[in-house]
Structures are given as structure tokens and as C-alpha cells.
């Protein structure tokens, strides 16, 4: 797998075109592979030759069935997982490890339980040596953005799941990242809370002009949030389809109800569900 992809990289004709792409893209991912070492010298190819770009202020969603390697791709961008082959560039700089230019929100609740909401949001600024006054301003701004100001002195155990994920979002954004990486951030929430969180996220991302790369397997969530959907298929994970959203950026619907009044969204939903059925093994058929 590694050999094949590296030769691809050298001989691929669209290499010149992609260099241009590379110059304008916020995040540039080219021919990325991930192999996991298994027992007995076997390797598992989790991600095979994945290429895509994310533009400034774009919300890009990785959608696909379980085992399609979408989380692995996100973790490689975060620098939490090494890259077996290919290149990942953020602002034309190759990624070498985790860094504060890429904020991450996990599915599990990762608020530090011994710190208050305020101290959690402040954490990144503190370890990066920002002054007290600066920390205060930025922290208050983002706590306000996620509407947690009345709870800024509460501890995470006193908050609901949705509120904890808002702390995680504020904490990631307060650190001033270039891109926000989200790994099924609302996967553990109640459906009604998930709704509210999606609308809140859309609002914040637009106000902060943030670029987002998000993983989900919730079709509805992908439709509502995305400017661009990358549909992945599994074994090994590859990009099956690149789907631009019917409406982009500020033209996107801001509530769930209004989205389903637009026929293009309903058609796209059907299309994605067909894709999902195609790539998923169905034991009943």
C-alpha cells in the first residue's frame, strides 16, 4: 500500500494542478494513507490514498459508515496519529504533531473535571503563556459565545452533556486555532440537544469565521452543517464521493425546519442514504 501510493505521488499528472490548489487551500490533504501494524507482521490499511481540500471558513464534513477511517483521517490532521504516506498541509505547512493551530473536540466529554468552566476554557491560553488580562478577555468572549456566562464558575459535573460540549468548543476556539476539528462532537447527546448544538455551532463558526473539519455518521447533521460533504467508503477508507452542499456559507438555512423546505436538501438526503446502503454490508439481504 505504501509503495503504490508513493509511486502515485510521483507519477500523478494532476500534481501541477494540485500545487495551485495547495496554495489557496486552508487544509490540503494529498494521497494520505494510514496503515496499522497488526499482530504477526500483518498490516491493516485503514485509510487509502485520500485526497481533499478544505477552504478558509468552509465546513467540511466527513461522512460514512463505521470503519471508513473518518476518525483516523481527523486524528492524522490533529497530529494525534502518524501519517503512513501522503501529505497533510495546513496553511501550506506540513503537520508534524499536535499543535494549537488545530483545535479538537472529541465525542466523549473531555472537560477537565477539576477545573471550572472558566478555567477549562482558559486552559490552552494558560499553557501557552498568555497574560492574565488577555486570558480574561478571550475566555469571557468565548464563554459568552457558547452562552455559558451564568455557569462560568460551575464545574463540569454540574453541567449537562450539551453544556459540556459547549465548554469543549469554547475551549478549542479560545486557543485561536486555524481550523476546528470535531470528531462526532454531538454523538452522545439527546436528539433535541443535538439540534440546538448544531444551530449554535453554525452560528459561532460563522461569527468567528472558522474553518471546520468534522466527522459524523449522522446524515441529517451533515446536511445541515456542511458546505461540502466527503462521503467515505470502508475497507479501506477512501473518498467515495465529493458532494457540495446545495447552499453554501451564509446562504445555508439556519434552522432544521427551513432546511427541509428546500427540495435540493431532500434530494441530497435521499442520495446519501442510497450511498450509505451501498457501502454498508446488510446481513438481512
Amino acid at each position: 500500500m505504501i509503495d503504490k501510493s508513493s509511486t502515485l505521488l510521483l507519477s500523478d499528472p494532476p500534481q501541477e494542478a494540485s500545487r495551485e490548489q495547495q496554495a489557496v487551500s486552508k487544509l490540503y490533504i494529498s494521497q494520505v494513507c494510514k496503515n496499522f501494524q497488526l499482530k504477526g507482521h500483518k498490516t491493516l490499511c485503514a485509510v487509502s490514498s485520500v485526497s481533499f481540500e478544505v477552504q478558509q471558513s468552509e465546513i467540511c464534513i466527513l461522512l460514512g459508515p463505521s470503519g471508513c477511517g473518518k476518525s483516523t483521517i481527523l486524528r492524522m490532521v490533529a497530529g494525534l496519529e502518524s501519517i503512513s504516506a501522503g501529505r497533510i498541509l495546513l496553511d501550506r505547512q506540513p503537520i508534524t504533531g499536535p499543535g494549537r493551530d488545530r483545535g479538537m473536540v472529541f465525542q466523549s466529554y473531555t472537560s477537565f473535571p477539576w477545573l471550572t468552566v472558566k478555567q477549562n476554557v482558559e486552559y490552552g491560553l494558560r499553557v501557552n503563556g498568555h497574560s492574565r488580562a488577555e486570558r480574561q478577555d478571550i475566555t469571557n468572549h468565548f464563554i459568552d459565545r457558547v452562552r455559558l456566562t451564568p455557569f462560568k464558575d460551575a464545574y463540569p459535573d454540574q453541567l449537562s452533556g450539551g453544556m459540556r460540549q459547549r465548554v469543549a468548543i469554547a475551549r478549542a476556539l479560545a486557543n485561536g486555532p486555524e481550523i476546528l476539528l470535531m470528531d462526532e462532537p454531538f454523538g452522545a447527546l439527546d436528539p433535541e440537544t443535538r439540534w440546538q448544538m448544531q444551530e449554535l455551532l453554525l452560528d459561532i463558526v460563522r461569527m468567528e469565521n472558522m474553518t471546520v473539519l468534522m466527522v459524523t455518521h449522522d446524515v441529517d447533521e451533515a446536511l445541515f452543517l456542511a458546505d461540502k460533504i466527503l462521503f467515505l467508503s470502508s475497507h479501506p477508507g477512501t473518498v467515495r464521493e465529493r458532494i457540495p452542499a446545495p447552499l453554501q456559507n451564509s446562504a445555508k438555512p439556519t434552522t432544521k425546519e427551513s432546511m427541509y423546505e428546500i427540495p435540493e436538501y431532500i434530494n441530497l438526503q435521499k442520495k446519501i442514504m442510497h450511498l450509505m446502503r451501498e457501502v454498508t454490508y446488510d446481513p438481512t439481504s
Partner: protein
Amino acid sequence: MTQLAEPAILANFEIKKQVPKRVQVLLGFASWVLFFLGWHLLATNSQINQQLFPPPLKVFTALWMLFAEENFLADVLQSVFRILASYGIAIAIALPLGLLMGTFPMVEAFLNPLVSPFRYLPAPSFIPLLLMWLGTGDEQKIAFLVLGVIWFLITLIMDNTQAVPMELVETAKTLGAGKGSILRTIIFPAALPNIVDTFRQMLAVSWTYLVIAEIVAATNGIGAMMMRAKRFVHVDEIMAGILVIGFLGLLFDTALRLLHWQLFPYLHRSQQKNLYAY
């Protein structure tokens, strides 16, 4: 088919059903009353030699006399000093080692094969060596008490550290924290509640070893008093010593429990969870 009525008394035994606080206290108290009552009845039975098995009242009298006339308080304080000094030394060594081993698999791979087997070497078997090396004073006693707990402390603190969720560490990494910062500001505070629990549990082991430490070549301390009493067949004084050790153990345990509540209130609020809606 008709359901047979359950006897009234059995209705109180529901599987995993919470018991009211008042009933809990009452039941706990009742078990102690029954214990002392049983002891008293057994000891005052004519078949029993009261000198070898004195009733509780005699033991409490002996305890009073020990404090009032034999300066037992000095022995108790001496024992407490040995426990605190040895435990302090053990923690000072075990805490950094355990944290490093739990954080860096490289350190674990190097030290665990060495530390782990030491847990299975019985600490009392080192007493003859310690007597030769350190004499019969406090140094020997404290060294023995350190040896008794330190291997367990190191491996348990390592386990506590390894149990810190990886997501917390990864979150800190993506927020730009370096290795030192992560160890100091994430791994240590995240592992600390369990480490304090480990301290509490291993302190009980320390109290167990204290008696052994003070039975061998000791002139003061609770254990030494018990050995003196044995020479004169003062069984009531021996039992009084046991009671004091049990009481002190419970006192230290309770103190560490309270400390846990004080330091980590966020772990003791489960009833109030989701205090705020949505």
C-alpha cells in the same frame, strides 16, 4: 396462581434498595452493641478463664489505667510518629516514581520488572537485616515500615496514573500543552483522587506492620507495650492495645476520606448531576 404473602421481616430485604440514613446509623450501632454484648457474655461464662479472655469492661478499665498511670500516651504518639514518618518517606519516593512509570511506558518497562517482584518479598523477612544495619532504634522501625508499603504504593500509583483517560491527554496536546505541562496540569490532577484513595488503603497496611515493627526489639510504642503486657499475662492491656490501634487506623482512614471530599468535591456530587437543564 396466587402470590403467597411474604413474611413482614423479609419485606425489608430488597435487593439493592437504599436504606434510609437513620436506619443505617441504627444498624451500624446495633452491630457494635451486639459485638460487645456477645464478648461480655462469652467472657463471663464460667468455662472461660477471665485472665486469658477478659470481658470488655475490664479491657476498658485497663485502657484507662494505661493512659492515667503508665504514660501510654507517649507510646501512642511514638507509634503515630513512626507511621507518619515512614509513610511520608514512602510517599515521597513512590509518588514521583509511580507518576513517571504510569506516564511514560519507557520508564515502566525499565522499573516495573524490578519493583513488581519486591511486593512478594515479605517485609518482615528484612527485619534481621535491618537490625544489623540500623540497630534497634527508630531508623530500623521506620525503614521496615517504608519497605512494607513502598512497592505496593509505587505499583498502585502507576495504575492510578495509567487509568487517566487518553482523551484528556490528547485534548491537552491539541491545545498546545507540552509534555511537562501535561504531566503537571493534566495527568497529576486527573490521577490524584485515586492516588489519595490508594494512600488511604495502604495506610491500613502500614498500621498492620507497625505492630510487627514494635514487637521486635522495641522499648516504646503501642506494640512494645503489648509485648511487655504479655510477659505479665496482662491480657486486658494487650486487648486495650489492639483497640487503640484499631481506633487510630479508623481515625486516619476517616481523616483521609474527609480530605478526599474536601479536595475533590466534583467527585462527590453525583446526586446533583444535571443540576441545570439542557
